[in-house]
């Protein structure tokens, strides 16, 4: 008899579990970020636009809805020293444009949300950080706690590529923002993430940059190309 009671209990537990699983996401939709932190510099931008969009991925848990669902984000680092200024350095989350963008469309579970960075003059001197956090609203709760925030660090200054030493055959060892601008202007390269495997191509870049800086310095005999601290730009 006792054996049958355990069996019945197990049956009840299993059936209750399966019912609750399907109910939980339908009743409690939640969102989280599904992207890595972002670093951006207007320095490497191919256009001269005064703003740029970077994209964060917002993922909605649970079944897709048959209606559009708005969601909310907030900046949590407003009091930090290097915090990005809303409306000055990025398009305010409370602006009509951002409100229009912060929607999970009907039938979808995920969107790439454009965050518009504004090329304010203050970015010429520093890098700022925008920490975004998902915020509960009528449509969504906060989803995965570990992924409820994402960081966007941006500036107008040149940033030294992490793989700079791998570009040695093309650019030499020294690095500076004036040198980076010279490289971009004379080679057209703006993405330094992947170093070409053809060493002769890197040597071609080096030959070209050496010739171009020779021509620049010859044309400016009393003012050769230097970094802000006076270091001569060399390749």
């Amino acid at each position, binding site marked *: 008899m006792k054996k049958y009671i355990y069996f019945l209990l197990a049956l009840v537990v299993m059936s209750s579990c399966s019912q609750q699983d399907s109910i939980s996401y339908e009743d409690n939709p939640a969102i989280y970020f599904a992207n890595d932190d972002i670093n951006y510099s207007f320095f490497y931008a191919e256009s001269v636009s005064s703003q740029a969009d970077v994209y964060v991925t917002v993922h909605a848990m649970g079944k897709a809805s048959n209606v559009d669902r708005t969601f909310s984000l907030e900046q949590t680092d407003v009091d930090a020293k290097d915090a990005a200024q809303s409306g000055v350095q990025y398009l305010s989350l409370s602006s009509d444009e951002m409100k229009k963008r912060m929607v999970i469309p009907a039938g979808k579970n995920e969107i790439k949300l454009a965050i518009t960075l504004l090329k304010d003059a203050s970015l010429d001197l520093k890098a700022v950080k925008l920490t975004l956090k998902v915020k509960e609203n009528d449509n969504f709760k906060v989803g995965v706690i570990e992924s409820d925030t994402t960081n966007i660090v941006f500036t107008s200054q040149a940033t030294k590529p992490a793989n700079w030493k791998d570009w040695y055959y093309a650019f030499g060892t020294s690095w500076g923002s004036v040198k980076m601008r010279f490289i971009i202007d004379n080679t057209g390269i703006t993405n330094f993430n992947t170093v070409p495997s053809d*060493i*002769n*191509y890197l*040597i*071609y870049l080096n030959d070209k940059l*050496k*010739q171009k800086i020779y021509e620049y310095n010859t044309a400016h005999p009393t003012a050769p190309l230097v970094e802000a601290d006076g270091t001569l730009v060399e390749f």
Partner: protein
Amino acid sequence: MVSTALLLSFTACSNDKGNYDYISENKLIPVEISVMDSVSVKANSLLSITPTVKNDDKSRYKYTWYTIAKNWPHKCDTLSTKHDLSLNCNLNAGEYTLYYQVKDSLKNIYKYVSAPLTVTATDINSGWYVMKERNGTTDVDYYSMSGTARPNLFTDVMGISPLVGSPVGMAYAPSCYNQEVNNPDGSVTKLYQQSVFHIVSTKDMITLNASDMGVFKRLSEEFYEQPSTFNFQAIAVDGLSTQTLLNNGQMHNLLGFMGGIGKFSFQKEGNFNFYPQIISADYDDYVYDQKSSSMYASDMFSGLVQCTNSKGSTIFSDSSFVMLNFMPRVDYSYMASAYAVFKGGLKNKYYVAAISLFDVYLNPTDPVFTEIPSTCGLLSTDVMAAPRNASVIYFAKDNMLKLFKVATISEEMLKTFDVGEKVTFIKNISGTNADKTTFNDLVVITNSSTGYKVYRFPLVGSAGEINATSSAVMTGTGAASFIMFRQN
């Protein structure tokens, strides 16, 4: 304890009187195999070699002919186990090392000799390549080692358009060139360590696969970024596979050692006006800049370096020096050397400069200047050349071939060609003939209204004299002005 052990071991060594019986190699295996010459053969044709073996014993030794491909993965193929090699060569076109091994199986020891083997997909390989101009375009006539002519390689043999402009030069780059090939399915195959010909005219150039004479690149593909002006002046390949091209007074390199995809680089840094001559040494290429009146060395490690003399200044520091001619004496050597004919502007004097070019230090020793009179024949012609082993300069004016002796500052007539023939090219070329005899010739090209002639005059003695009695060995249509000999 350790020191005791060390002491014992030293003692053991010092007390070792030796108890070994050394046997000479020749006593162990007395067979002697003569050195093999390099071999070139067309694929699927007869490859026949009869080796010279002293102290041979066919009842005792076993013989093996085998090849190892020079390109990765260095595949090994056994060709024959007979004493003499005679077979239909079914190897793919490419570069190999051919080995001939004689083995004493009883003692399990062997001796071998080896030689470069080139298998080509075409019968155009070893021999003479004559660059010529017709109607403003450049084509190449080929003459095999046995003398068979294949005129007009571009237009008649390969069916492609000739190069635009006049002949400048051609260079053979062995096993150092990479090429990307686009497949029909859109994929790309990269060919490594290919042997190529660079053929250059004043306005055009082409790179050919030396194994099958297929076109690797035409002008539009030769550079990572095309120069704004095409005015080609010289091409050379040094001992480290650096391919150097002079264009419009500037230098472009292709570092064969560095892999890549066979494209020339941007011009070297500076505002030069290089004299249209490259002296190739084992590790460097030397050029003369007419703007700075100084010599530059280019190598794959240091780039382009201005040469200095023993006092640290540029060797032709007198900026009034005007280079009238610059020619190699010894090239493709660790210690290259050159002659130059100069006008010393300030003093209005003329000189022949003997220049030694040392590779490693990039420092030519101080040139030795010999003043020559303003009436010297060297000053009235651009056609001249120097031999490797004599202090003389050959030069030509119209149909006269002459010799200038630097030591005595004297001239002598070597040969007068028929009226109407004009000498356009002279070069001292050495190598091995089809019958395996070696040659060291002064090769002379003349042009006339009926076409060109190529003469080969053997050098005799050690003072640059030639035997100028032979008649033309190659003749063709068009105006020829450059010849290259390819041994293999």
